[in-house]
């Protein structure tokens, strides 16, 4: 028993600093997903047919391929190939972290676009009409009237997306990102205590889920507008 406790005690700081890596990964992926997901959603709702088609294919592809396969494809395949191009050498593209943020972000964009799309579609049609009646262009109407409302309605979906991303971020170990899971494996292979260490990892992830969901609840409260609910 005591060796288990010592093993945990000694691994704890190392494991916990991995939680930062997961946190940065998730924040990065959520931002990529947001920046790409919003235009995807707008394209799918308001775009012409070819645009809608492209968005659909994007969503279909990124929702259909497992994260693990995408990580291998991007890290060992696409990014490795791109970094061999001489004039891209400065960018240090062969980075596990970059691959993980890209894969999680691109996949999250597919899911987030569907959250935003649902939110846009749930707004009353009168909102868009009223904006046009005031003489706004479509672009102005979307950015100043539709999106501020739709993004507020998207927060509950976002909270769900956060907990999915958090769990998927554990897969970044597969390309060598030193997040919690990678550290668990590393420590387990030297201390031969896989069981308590994986339980510890589980607890760290569980705590991260809890903290993030609570933070998003607080955000939802903060940006709430009277008379607005989902």
């Amino acid at each position, binding site marked *: 028993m005591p060796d288990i406790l010592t093993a945990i005690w000694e691994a704890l700081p190392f494991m916990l600093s991995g939680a930062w890596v997961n946190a940065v990964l998730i924040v990065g992926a959520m931002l990529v997903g947001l920046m790409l997901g919003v235009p995807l959603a707008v394209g799918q709702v308001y775009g012409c047919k070819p645009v809608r088609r492209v968005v659909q294919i994007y969503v279909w592809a990124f929702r259909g391929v497992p994260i693990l396969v995408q990580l291998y494809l991007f890290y060992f395949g696409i990014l490795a190939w791109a970094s061999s191009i001489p004039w891209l050498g400065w960018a240090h593209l062969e980075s596990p972290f970059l691959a993980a943020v890209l894969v999680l972000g691109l996949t999250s964009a597919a899911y987030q676009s569907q959250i935003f799309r649902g939110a846009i579609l749930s707004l009353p049609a009168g909102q868009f009409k009223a904006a046009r009646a005031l003489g706004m262009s479509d672009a102005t109407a979307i950015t100043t009237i539709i999106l501020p409302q739709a993004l507020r309605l998207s927060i509950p979906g976002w909270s769900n997306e956060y907990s999915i991303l958090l769990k998927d971020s554990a897969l970044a170990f597969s390309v060598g990102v030193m997040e919690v899971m990678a550290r668990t494996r590393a420590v387990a292979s030297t201390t031969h205590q*896989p069981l308590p260490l994986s339980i510890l990892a589980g607890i760290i992830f569980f705590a991260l889920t809890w903290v993030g969901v609570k933070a998003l609840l607080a955000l939802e409260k903060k940006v709430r507008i009277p008379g607005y609910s989902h």
Partner: protein
Amino acid sequence: MDDTWSFVTEQVIPGLNLGFWATVQLAVPSALLGLFTGIVVGVLRVYGPRPAQRLANGYVSFFRGTPLVVQLFCWYFGLPQICLFIESLGPVMGVLNALHLAWVPRLLVLSPMGAAILGFSLCSGAYHSEYVRGGLMSIRTGQIKAAQALGMSPMQTVLHVVLPQAVRRALPGCGNEIVYLIKYSSLASVVTVNELTGMARGIAKSTWRNTEVFFTVGVYYLLLVTLATFILGWVEDRLSLPGFERRRE
């Protein structure tokens, strides 16, 4: 280009086809066991006695709150540690030996396939139970009262009133979960199962042609997921009734 094509058809696809069968052998039992677990746990969470409800809720929140890969790690690498621990306890082993049960702790040492199926079933069971619970809770008490008022027994009420309604309400969520399971079956490669992803890694390592190999395996998953979505949608449509329409995206 020609070279790529022949590489894919001659070296990648035959290997991946082997992995494909492993994926099917992994996903089908996991889906069935997961669904079974989800139904049992979902029913317990709604109709079970208070302690059982607590236990089931705890199970669900823990398995939904931690990454599947951590769970797999725990089952494959962690459980044998318990086996070693039991075997290190002299008196316990003495009793087990006397009863000819010394092999029992060894049951905790799972094969890669066994650990993967256990992990997938338990994790997807937790998700299924959410939909089952939602389906059961959506049934108004009036439906059960009406069945009783007609003289139906509790068994008849469950069979002819509760289940047909709950199944329809839970189906879209459970279907989605099965699609997720197909994708997440790729994690079995982490515990050394040579399913689609595991095979792809092997081929990629020996040929160093990562992009082609992983792109091809991505297409395999896309086809699998699309086919599964299509079949589940068809089942949903077949079971759809006015008032129980499928919520389309």
